[in-house]
């Protein structure tokens, strides 16, 4: 079974992923890939957390990493940040070896943790200035970044006085302060209200448009669908598949049209599978029926497809 891996063009070299299926990947050479993970394995003692995982992310792309708790998402991110050293396999980021060139790579990484690990006794701007110094950024001004995440009025307030959502936005700002080439975002919209979540998603898109490679872990299938160029399903340490959301939805489940129409006192509903023979005629007839109420196209959701692959849901 061929499953395209992340890459701008969707074709190229063939590698083996978790379940030993050959996978077609992008044509990017390793030098142009922002993230190149090759047959990486990591175990916590006897428990295998990441099992021969391989994937790539090109500059400017967003890869959504989807899986339930304990699937291996965070362990994979920790290997990308250099916090954990893989037992086997190879990780290359921006053409450099991780963990061999850890410091050089970390200088170009932006990381947003799921846990709100900010210095609570410092103000928002002090947090950013401190981390900017650690990145070696001279003359850093926190104001534009705070403005970008909607915290410009809370610059000098201690983080302990911030709401959960404000802390999350500050986490996003901290991940961006070194204008990273690779962004690793672990549940970046968790705890955000819908308006703030939209703002953060816009920032993620802007960063990708700037050329940053983005690895995004989320439980939110709609967010993954909305943001990701490609999504990877991960379960029990294995990557089950990687593809564009569109391809996944087209190649899994059934495309159909759901039509509701009033017949006398009754409302009738008809589902017409698009791949069935005569579907066009049936739709035409249904649309011309008097009493037509609604027409909806339907396709499999990423959640449905994940269940199909993993045999379980995301939660």
């Amino acid at each position, binding site marked *: 079974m061929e499953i395209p891996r992340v890459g701008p063009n969707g074709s190229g070299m063939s590698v083996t992923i978790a379940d030993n299926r050959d996978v077609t990947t992008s044509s990017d050479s390793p030098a142009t890939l922002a993230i190149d993970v090759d047959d990486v394995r990591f175990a*916590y003692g006897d428990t295998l957390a990441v099992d021969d995982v391989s994937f790539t992310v090109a500059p400017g792309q967003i890869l959504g990493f989807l899986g339930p708790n304990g699937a291996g998402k965070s362990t994979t991110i920790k290997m990308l940040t250099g*916090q954990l050293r893989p037992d086997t396999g190879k990780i290359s980021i921006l053409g450099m070896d991780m963990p061999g060139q850890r410091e050089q790579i970390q200088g170009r*990484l932006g990381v947003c*943790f799921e*846990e709100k*690990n900010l*210095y609570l*006794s410092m103000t928002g701007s002090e947090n950013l200035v*401190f981390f900017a110094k650690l990145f070696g950024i001279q003359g850093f001004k926190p104001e534009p970044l705070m403005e970008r995440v909607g915290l410009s009025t809370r610059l000098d307030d201690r983080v302990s006085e911030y709401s959960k959502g404000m802390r999350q936005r500050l986490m996003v700002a901290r991940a961006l302060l070194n204008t990273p080439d690779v962004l690793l975002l672990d549940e970046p919209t968790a705890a955000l209200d819908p308006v703030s979540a939209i703002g953060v998603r816009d920032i993620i898109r802007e960063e990708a448009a700037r050329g940053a490679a983005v690895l995004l872990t989320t439980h939110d299938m709609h967010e993954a669908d909305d943001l990701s160029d490609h999504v990877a399903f991960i379960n029990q340490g294995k990557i089950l598949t990687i593809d564009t959301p569109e391809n996944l939805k087209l190649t899994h489940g059934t495309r159909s049209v759901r039509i509701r129409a009033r017949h006398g006192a009754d409302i009738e509903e008809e589902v017409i599978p698009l791949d069935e023979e005569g579907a066009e005629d049936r739709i035409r007839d249904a649309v011309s029926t008097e009493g037509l109420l609604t027409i909806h196209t339907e396709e499999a959701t990423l959640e449905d497809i994940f269940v199909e692959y993993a045999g379980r849901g995301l939660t």
Partner: protein
Amino acid sequence: MSLRRSWYVFGRELKLSPRSPLVFFAIAMPFLITFLISSVFGSLFDVNPKLGIVDEGDSAMTVAAQQLDGVDTTVVADAITLRTRVESHDFDAGLVLPAGFDAAVRAGENPDLQFYVSGESLASTRAIIAVTTIDLVRGVAGDEPPVDVVVTPVGAEDYVPISDRLLPTMVIYAVMIAALFLPAASLVDEREKRTLDAVLVTPTTITDVLVGKGTFAVILATVMGVVTLALNNAFAGQPGTMTLILFIGSMMLMLMGLILGLWAKDITTLYTAIKAGGIVIFLPVLFTLFPGLPQWIPKFVPTYYFLQPIYDIAIRGDTFADVLPEVAIALVICIALVPLVAWVAKRAEHELAITV
């Protein structure tokens, strides 16, 4: 390792120190403990009683008083100034010797002697000055002492008063909170709140963090140790040597603090470890307080090798050369702790990464 990043970590610790209760405690402790101990036992290293004299007639008492070893005598121009300075506790007491005082004493006339005593002076100091003054008057009168006093030393010849034996207690308290407890608690806090994760995914290494936190702890501990010695006049004329020994002691405790902070999984574990293991750190102090105990036992405890030199210099008047062997051992202990810290740090970094 990057010294620049260590400097930033140091700067952060320094900047946040006014917001930290622990730093406040570390700074307040030397003052608090000095106040408490001096309230109970008097000043550890009492200076000589201070006597002011207004001499309106070239009295022989003035010359005799100035020659005393045990009293610091100052001649003042007039009685008003003397009274003012006694009131402000510049002097423990003040004497006004009127013109013709010596002649009147020798003639047996019982002249008046104006004697001011500071309300803030200790009772012991007042007694010393009163007895000294009577002795000086007797000298002017030419009286022979009515008795011959035979002095017989009893008890241990090298007996040190309890108040002096408390010096190591004060020093260890002053140094330990800043050097050991502060970096340990700070590290545990960063691990518990996962802020260390955020720092370690920047180009900053665990070594940078430890150097920054450790430097802050050592500087603060050394300063507080110096303040403690200064408050108690315990430099014994060797401030440079004392500061060096305090610095080495602070280094030793800081390295122990880093090991504890990297090892303890949470703040409760840290408190428990310090409570349980504190006896080892304090052991030399107990043996100084109770000199009848076998004095070879505290030599197995690292803190002995900086507390004992401070005690020996301050109390026994030893020189740096005398205490050099102990100081050298303290330095060797510090050097030996460095690779241990590095090993524990590596282990802690991995533990941190695999902990969800």
